[in-house]
């Protein structure tokens, strides 16, 4: 099934969204009428449409649970977005709370934290994006070249495994490995004669690097799957032709593999660039400690803390809404930009 996803990425021009939908299929009456050159009256179109709906009642039943759940727990909360524009108290409810317009947004932008929140969120995101981008590709290219089957399988299983580790356990492992006194880091340092290695877990400067590189360690293998699947779709005759032309392995990678992966890579890059303001809450929250707060406080953790913990519901809703809107706009912008550049786009 990954092949189908890849195939739709690979087509230059057609947009992913529409390509995925496929051609339309109208009812038999419609088709017959069109073939006969007749113009259907509005009523006939309406009737044939309802007939098709009624005939496929089973499909709508299959859709029902998902639609209902999504409506209840993702669309209904959108009504609660108003909380950001009111002075909300749970007692008064949404209806009973007074309107305050953009007051909370102003509070947020005037707060002393706003600058560091933005800096931390964006820099962490960019760092993550740039560092994490090449490794899955690199891994896929390498795995594609390994001919010893056993070794390849071992490597695959090994690199996929860390992906399944939960965030809590991952951060717990980080704390354990990087402990200056009893962890791997501490032991390695002592091996090299450094008796009192610096406590990198407490160093604000190291926070982002630890976050990013542990992410790469954990997910590069899994992320490479989509590239491996793409590479498996390369026409073998391309390689044969290259061999005849005298290409060595380096050159095959450079002139066949990499260009083939490019469309997929671009799409994934677009999707991740659109998510720049959306740094995940979980891992950052777990990695925070009093020593690194100035670097580790991002928008998502701020929203959680002032909202759920300090109960400043309206302020939290305002910041959260602001973040969501920016995300949405960014994604649209990035998508537009990539369409202009002639590459495949998301929709």
């Amino acid at each position: 099934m990954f092949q189908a996803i890849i195939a739709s990425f690979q087509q230059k021009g057609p947009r992913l969204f529409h390509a995925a939908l496929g051609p339309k299929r109208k009812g038999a009456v419609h088709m017959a009428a069109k073939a006969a050159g007749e113009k259907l009256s509005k009523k006939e179109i309406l009737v044939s449409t309802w007939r098709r709906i009624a005939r496929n009642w089973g499909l709508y039943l299959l859709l029902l649970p998902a639609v209902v759940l999504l409506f209840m727990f993702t669309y209904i909360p959108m009504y609660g977005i108003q909380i950001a524009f009111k002075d909300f108290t749970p007692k008064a409810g949404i209806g009973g709370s007074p309107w305050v317009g953009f007051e909370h947004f102003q509070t947020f932008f005037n707060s002393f934290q706003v600058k560091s929140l933005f800096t931390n969120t964006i820099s962490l995101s960019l760092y993550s994006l740039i560092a994490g981008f090449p490794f899955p590709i690199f891994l896929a290219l390498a795995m594609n070249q390994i001919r010893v089957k056993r070794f390849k399988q071992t490597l695959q299983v090994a690199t996929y495994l860390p992906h399944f580790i939960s965030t809590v356990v991952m951060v717990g492992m980080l704390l354990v490995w990087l402990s200056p006194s009893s962890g791997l880091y501490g032991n390695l340092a002592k091996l090299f004669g450094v008796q009192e290695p610096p406590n990198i877990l407490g160093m604000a400067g190291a926070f982002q690097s630890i976050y990013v590189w542990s992410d790469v360690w954990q997910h590069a293998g899994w992320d490479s799957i989509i590239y491996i699947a793409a590479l498996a779709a390369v026409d073998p005759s391309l390689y044969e032709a290259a061999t005849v032309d005298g290409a060595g392995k380096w050159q095959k990678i450079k002139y066949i593999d990499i260009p083939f992966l490019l469309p997929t890579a671009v799409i994934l890059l677009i999707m991740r660039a659109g998510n720049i303001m959306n740094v995940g809450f979980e891992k950052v929250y777990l990695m925070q400690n009093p020593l690194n707060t100035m670097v580790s406080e991002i928008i998502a953790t701020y929203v959680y803390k002032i909202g759920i913990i300090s109960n400043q519901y309206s302020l939290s809703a305002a910041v959260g809404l602001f973040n969501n809107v920016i995300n949405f706009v960014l994604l649209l912008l990035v998508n537009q930009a990539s369409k202009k550049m002639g590459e495949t786009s998301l929709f």
Partner: protein
Amino acid sequence: MASLGSIKRQVTWNDLIFNIILYGMSIIILLIVIYPLYFIVIASFSNPTEVANGKVWFVPSQFTVDGYKEIMRHSELWTGYRNTIVYTVLGTVIGLAVNIPAAYALSRRDLVGRKLITFFFIFTMFFNGGLIPTYFTIRDFGLYDTFWVMVLPFSVAVYHIIIARTFFDSSLPQGILDAAQIDGCGNLRFFFQIALPLSKAVLAVIALYTAVSQWNAYFNALVYIRNEDLKPLQLVIRNILITNQAMAGTGDGLAAQEARRLSELMKYAVIIISTVPIMCVYPFVQKYFSQGVMIGAIKG
């Protein structure tokens, strides 16, 4: 023209260097990935003082199961374990029941309103109400601090639906549907008796994804669960691994030091027992998973 297979290529210097670098790098990658995990395994069986002194590198030193014994004594860990198992099994069943049928319905080209419904789903990937509005919605529906909040409200995973829909799109030939419809087979019957049995690969993949995300679930529990009896494993071990609340050993006395050492050891053991189950499930499902990728490859 002779087939290319019969042309003997000379092993060039370039290729040899390439292979050396390739396999060398791969071995280094393998070590970087495996060794830290291996270290935790052996450290969980070693005397914590030995670990702290840097004596543990490749095998456990002064083998001990004290860490695991200590775990046995913490009943909240067992509650968490039990809860997570229930959440995972139930969550996976519900996830499959909700997402797969929707994916199938969306893959049918003759579904009226298909574009609109697809947009309905995909829009939620880019925009939602936000933390606070969702929090209050959950409260208003009476799901706050209940067992159901972990398995029902957020069970729709649009990402999974897209994957499954692509699978149905590319792997169910239109011909089967046409033939069945000629024979008078209804949609529901087709789905349950024909489409599903043919979709074992995608069922396995979605089940795996859902199970893993349920097992590792932590944020929803953090926000929506207060009752100690309902807390999943990840929330419990967060206290042990990160906020250090399990064994507060302050002071410099020998007993306090001993307590601190034991809590260090317990951390390793906790990591192992909370991650091993998922890691064990993976090899079994990998069979279906690689099949799924292969099916896609042939179709593509």
